[in-house]
């Protein structure tokens, strides 16, 4: 089977038109084992992929699928407890699966470059950027004068490279650090660049810029790229070929568009169906009807204005930034934001980091005091609530937070976690509370046996479902989701979004959904508010905003969704 693959002429080689038909990197039957306290664990089995010179290949998979491990094996940087237990890694015909450390050092930098995942932790904080570039250049025996360093940095798109080279990593923004890492990865003009989730920590617009730049640079240099990502849309947009990994195996591989349009393995099908960046409509049909009825009712109900469960009027939040002794400057995190949230609908606030969207959420939750402006909940100004009334308000408005690892107390088991709101509000006795907890677990599709478990034993998606159950315990009217699905794998994310949508139609909940991910917005929201630097840029119904955005910023955001332009036939699956 694999032989056939090798002998079948690849269309893309001719397109690329580069030297010869021999693959630059070929991985055959690769198996990787890790030694753990529980014995040997096989992380990767039978992995195979081929990269032609000048080609970009993406490995797509969820966390734990073995995609990063495969790439690390190719550059000989497996963790100490991991080893290649079978198969071959052929780099230009040479098997480097068991190459000596000496040989790998020769290859790294010059032949294989690497752009690691996390720009925050992959630059040494105590050395200047320029020094770190020079280290790479020197190690590979290239000229490393100040001008060479500046040139390398400038090529990666860092403005004012000479001055920047003399700065420390903490003086750089996330995007700039990633550029510096790309500069280091490409500084010695390797023939293969391994980019491990190079932009997953960055805002979408920055992600787009960086990927664009990476693409231009590698095509100029004729570098092959092995791109590792969890985002199928991004992979399809950037790569010639996509390799899908699941549970340590390659389940499907092929030209990207072909694979997207015609996924054959059930896992890939599932992935294509739930990839948020590719979906064009709201996720479930039942909800669709709900929207229609709401639309029909809307004109009649609007004059009454009772429909608005939340009214936010000219909200402002100013923080004092300390600047040395006694001095401070004002920083408006939220500046004159007004919008309404209709009962039973989902309103999304979209923005990049620093746009003030989370601050709005905190103020609506009464966890921060607004500097100015009003928040009306059911027509009542929330800033004027007395302690007892605030306590009652808390029953009606509940949050779900972003980080599924941080939002549950690690000391509390699942039962105590979900029971806590009931206990705090003195609802029922212990028997009735336990019954309620069981019901809630059913609602979020968790087995009742999970009650005695602790958060560290659950996966991210499961924790998020526990957080949803906790939020539902008090039968609230409004739920505020602050990046509630951002940290989850695609399939799990789709599952949680579906759950949220089901709960909305069953319980008539209102959601205020804070997110940076426009793709998610399209799936869940009725109305969108786009925020930039503390200001509200654009509001409207989801369809309006997505189909005819008025503001440039909104357009830029929409364009930056990876894979947005890959139009797929509607009946993909």
């Amino acid at each position, binding site marked *: 089977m694999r032989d056939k693959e090798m002998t079948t002429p690849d269309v893309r080689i001719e397109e690329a038109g580069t030297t010869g038909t021999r693959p630059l990197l070929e991985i055959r039957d690769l198996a990787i084992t890790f030694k753990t306290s529980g014995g040997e664990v096989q992380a990767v089995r039978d992995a195979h992929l081929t990269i032609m010179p000048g080609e970009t290949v993406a490995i797509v998979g969820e966390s734990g699928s073995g995609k990063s491990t495969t790439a690390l094996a190719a550059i000989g940087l497996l963790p100490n407890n991991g080893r290649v237990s079978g198969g071959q890694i052929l780099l230009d015909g040479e098997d480097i699966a068991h190459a000596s450390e000496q040989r790998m050092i020769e290859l790294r930098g010059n032949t294989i470059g690497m752009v690691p995942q996390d720009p925050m932790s992959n630059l040494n904080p105590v050395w200047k950027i320029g020094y770190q570039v020079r280290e790479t250049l020197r190690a590979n025996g290239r000229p490393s004068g100040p001008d060479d360093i500046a040139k390398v940095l400038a090529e990666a798109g860092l403005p004012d490279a000479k001055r920047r080279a003399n700065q420390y990593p903490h003086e750089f923004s996330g995007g700039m650090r990633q550029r510096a890492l790309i500069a280091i990865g490409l500084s010695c003009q390797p023939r293969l660049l391994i980019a491990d989730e190079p932009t997953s920590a960055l805002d979408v617009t920055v992600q787009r810029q960086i990927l664009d730049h990476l693409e231009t640079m590698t095509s100029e240099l004729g570098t092959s790229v092995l791109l590792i990502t969890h985002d199928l849309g991004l992979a399809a947009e950037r790569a010639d070929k996509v390799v899908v990994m699941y549970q340590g*195996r*390659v389940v499907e*591989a092929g030209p990207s568009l072909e694979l997207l349009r015609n996924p054959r393995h059930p896992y890939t099908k599932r992935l294509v169906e739930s990839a948020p960046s590719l979906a064009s409509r709201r996720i479930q049909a039942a909800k669709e009807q709900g929207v229609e009825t709401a639309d029909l009712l809307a004109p009649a109900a609007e004059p009454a204005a009772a429909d608005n469960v939340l009214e936010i009027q000219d909200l402002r939040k100013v923080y004092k930034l300390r600047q040395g002794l006694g001095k401070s400057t004002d920083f408006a995190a939220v500046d004159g934001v007004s919008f309404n949230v209709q009962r039973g609908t989902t309103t999304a606030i979209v923005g990049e980091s620093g746009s003030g969207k989370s601050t709005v959420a905190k103020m609506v939750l009464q966890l921060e005091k607004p500097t100015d402006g009003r928040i009306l909940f059911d027509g009542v100004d929330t800033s004027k609530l007395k302690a007892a009334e605030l306590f009652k308000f808390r029953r009606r408005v509940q949050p779900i*937070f972003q980080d599924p690892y941080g939002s549950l107390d690690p000391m509390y088991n699942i039962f105590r976690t979900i029971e*806590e709101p009931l206990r705090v509000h003195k609802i029922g006795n212990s028997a009735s509370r336990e019954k309620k907890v069981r019901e809630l677990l059913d609602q979020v599709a968790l*087995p009742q*046996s999970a009650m005695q478990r602790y958060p560290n034993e659950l996966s991210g998606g499961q924790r998020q479902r526990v957080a949803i159950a906790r939020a539902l315990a*008090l039968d609230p009217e409004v739920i505020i989701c602050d990046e509630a699905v951002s940290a989850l794998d695609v399939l799990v994310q789709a*599952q949680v979004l579906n759950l949220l949508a089901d709960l909305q139609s069953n319980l008539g909940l209102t959601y205020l959904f804070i997110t940076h991910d426009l793709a998610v917005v399209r799936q869940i929201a009725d109305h969108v508010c786009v925020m930039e630097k503390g200001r509200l840029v654009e509001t409207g119904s989801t369809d309006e905003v997505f189909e005819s955005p008025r503001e440039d910023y909104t357009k830029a955001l929409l364009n930056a969704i990876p894979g947005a332009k890959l139009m797929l036939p509607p009946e993909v699956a």
Partner: protein
Amino acid sequence: MTSNNSHFVAPIDETPLLATDAVKTDQAPLSLWSDAWRKLRRRPLFIISALLILALTVVALFPGLFTSVPPNEGCELANSEGGPTAGHPFGFTFQGCDVYSRVIHGTQASLSVGILSVLCVLVIGVTIGALAGYYGGWLDSVLARLGDIFFALPLILGALVITQLPFFRENKSVWTVVFVISLLAWPQMARITRGAVIEVRNADFVTAAQALGVSKFGALVRHVLPNALAPIIVLATLELGVFIVAEATLSFLGIGLPQSIMSWGNDIAGAQASIRTSPEIMLYPAAALSITVLSFIMLGDAVRDALDPKSRQR
């Protein structure tokens, strides 16, 4: 199988599709503490130190089980610096008292000073550190400066000065020693607590609890403190050893426990007279002191490793 060129699909039976995000139910539930306990049980360092501490506690509570010779009676100058004889395995002090009996009876004073001081330091330090770290603001500033002042004063040097006050010179007892040690040692505990509390106070689960209607102080007690406990416990274990040494040092200098109380510090001071002729008299109480301190420090290390969040899975 690959009909279309280079479009590879793995056979489905090789990687059957699992249910998305299924809950594992094959293991017993594990809380942080039971997880730490499981890890501790397997560490030889912990087992050895725990056994030693257990033995020391038994000795401190029931010294009569280990020696029938009363420590201060039957001291005969005729036995001064005498070597080991039957019933007196460690020999005699300069004053002719039984060394073995004195070492056994000294355990109680050393341990009780250590434990009482740690308890006082925990109460003061944790309260102040938690309030300062959690509420911040002026309270934090005032407490931080106050802590800095005490911090600049090494424990023993500070104690030297304080014990010169007439009140302390006239009322030497276990309690004055505990008071002096606690007074000088709480800032470190407060500092560690403050750091741990600051780390936890911004966690989402604390915000979530407040959004549920838990009061600010309630969230501190219910969520923040239990999660900040690990470094506090580690420091308390380590400080227990440090305080026992401090007590011995002060007693050695004659400003700690009064002569009437049997303690290793007093024994070491007494043995100084015979340091040149029979140094082994000093060796026994010093060895007892070293073993005690070592076992508490080993315990602290083992507990630190077990509670280290980095070593926790997932």
